[in-house]
């Protein structure tokens, strides 16, 4: 179900917790599974549940509680723009609008070519670098200007 590399990473996470507390690794296991699969299909969650000895619904609770899990297939790149107040004061909304215009999509939409999905994000703990956006949960882009967005989209479109 998951690749040996992913399983190795999950095992590394499991080792951080007491032996009878495997469930503690569920957040990282889901993140690792999502990195491999792009999103969390029911089978994937079921697999993680079995792997960690949890009821599948408990895995589902976790997957739906935390924002960064994708419960449906998204574009190849998920772009999350922070529009919370501190970012908004420094152009967060302008960035969001610019990306919307460039990609001709709104929040929670995916481009026709399946390349990009746009999301509105909450505070990323990087307000000093506003405006900020996040690519696929892991790559943070700071002090975004329109030029930088052009560059970024171009790079990702390749």
């Amino acid at each position: 179900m998951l690749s040996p590399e992913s399983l190795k990473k999950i095992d590394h996470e499991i080792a951080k917790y007491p032996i009878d507390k495997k469930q503690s690794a569920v957040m990282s296991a889901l993140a690792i599974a999502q990195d491999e699969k792009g999103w969390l299909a029911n089978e994937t969650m079921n697999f993680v549940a079995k792997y960690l000895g949890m009821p599948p619904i408990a895995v589902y609770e976790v997957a739906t509680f935390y924002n960064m899990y994708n419960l449906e297939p998204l574009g190849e790149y998920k772009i999350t723009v922070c529009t919370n107040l501190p970012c908004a004061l420094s152009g967060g909304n302008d960035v969001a609008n610019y990306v919307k215009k460039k990609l001709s999509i709104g929040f929670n939409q995916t481009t026709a070519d399946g390349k990009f999905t746009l999301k509105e994000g909450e505070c990323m703990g990087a307000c000093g670098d506003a405006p900020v956006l996040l690519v696929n949960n892991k790559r943070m882009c700071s002090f975004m200007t329109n030029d930088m967005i052009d560059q970024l989209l171009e790079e990702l479109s390749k």
Partner: protein
Amino acid sequence: MTQFTQTLLAGVDSSDAENWQLKNYARRSGYSAIRKILSNKISPDSVIEEVKKSALRGRGGAGFPTGLKWSFMPKQYEGDKYIVCNSDEGEPGTFKDRDIMRHNPHILIEGMIIAAYAMGVKVGYNYIHGEIWDTYERMEEAVEEARAAGYLGNNILGSNFSFNLYNHHGYGAYICGEETALLESIEGKKGQPRFKPPFPANYGLYGKPTTINNTETFASVPWIILNGGEQYLKLGKPNNGGTKLFSVSGHVNKPGNYEIPMGTPFATLLEMAGGMRGGKKLKACIPGGSSMPVLPGEIMMQTDMDYDSIAKAGSMLGSGAVIIMDETTCMVKALERLSYFYFEESCGQCTPCREGTGWLYRIVNRIEHGKGLMEDLDLLDNIADNIQGRTICALGDAAAMPVRAMIQHFRNEFIYHIEHKKCMV
């Protein structure tokens, strides 16, 4: 420009990609605090005493005296105890812990080692906000370095003290910053806060005694041990010891983190942050993160940056996030965005917060969109009143306080919105 003593970022060069590494931390006399403790056989109780003397107060938001908190951990407890670092910085406006972790991660690790020593703890977790992934990776590397150098693991530096530290990442839930939600999250569950009592010191991670502190709190400890609690206290003001990182965001020229002594005037901080962007007028400031009451600019300019002074001015120091808003800011819109945040981030378990945050947001949203009624202002105040103090955790308060303060200080602007169905600014 004024130069202050730094305790957290002293000597840190964030432009140098390798400056965070252990060897460089060691050059800044890193890990000498724990060495001092172990080689001088300073007792755990003396460590806690020193922290008490320093008047270090929790940097996560509530400002609880750290030494006192540490003394709550049961001493004679058989079985596991834990310390947990709260690096789930997600309070809008706050971005200080990220800088500590990415530019000076070993100071946090050393702080946690000392805390573990003081409380007789063998295992610690550092819970890192999900969105700052590279910081999580940096911490993983730093922990590995520390382990390799013998600062983490069994028999640290040849002593009989052992401590292991692990990083746990979040994945997008502000509520996990609340300490008991964070524990639930480490346990692999939804981050839903627990009812207190029992408090974590008795029933924490996996039901074991646990102490939770903010990243900055732990990171403040090595300096205290090296230089003495009294010295630290003297950097700041009585009851408000030491220096503090303030995250300045919004309408300033140089947003960023500034480490200043407690009690430094707000005006000085504003100046350090390059002053108002475009020379505009300061209209309002949220001095302690988005959960805290907003204060009008005039009041702010008279206030010093420490717990007691800001409380006197009618707000709270909170996490030290200073959100600056100039005269062009629409306060209704600002509140709408904040209310949306709490509505989105409510964990959903307790009734007043689950139902009330949505209600608040929808009314403010209506007002912002020209569909407000005059009664709405009292209604907002009353709903906020019905949320505040009635919820399991303080997110309810955090959602209510900004609403009440905004209406208190900027009522005219709300009335204008309702009457003219448009913005005043």
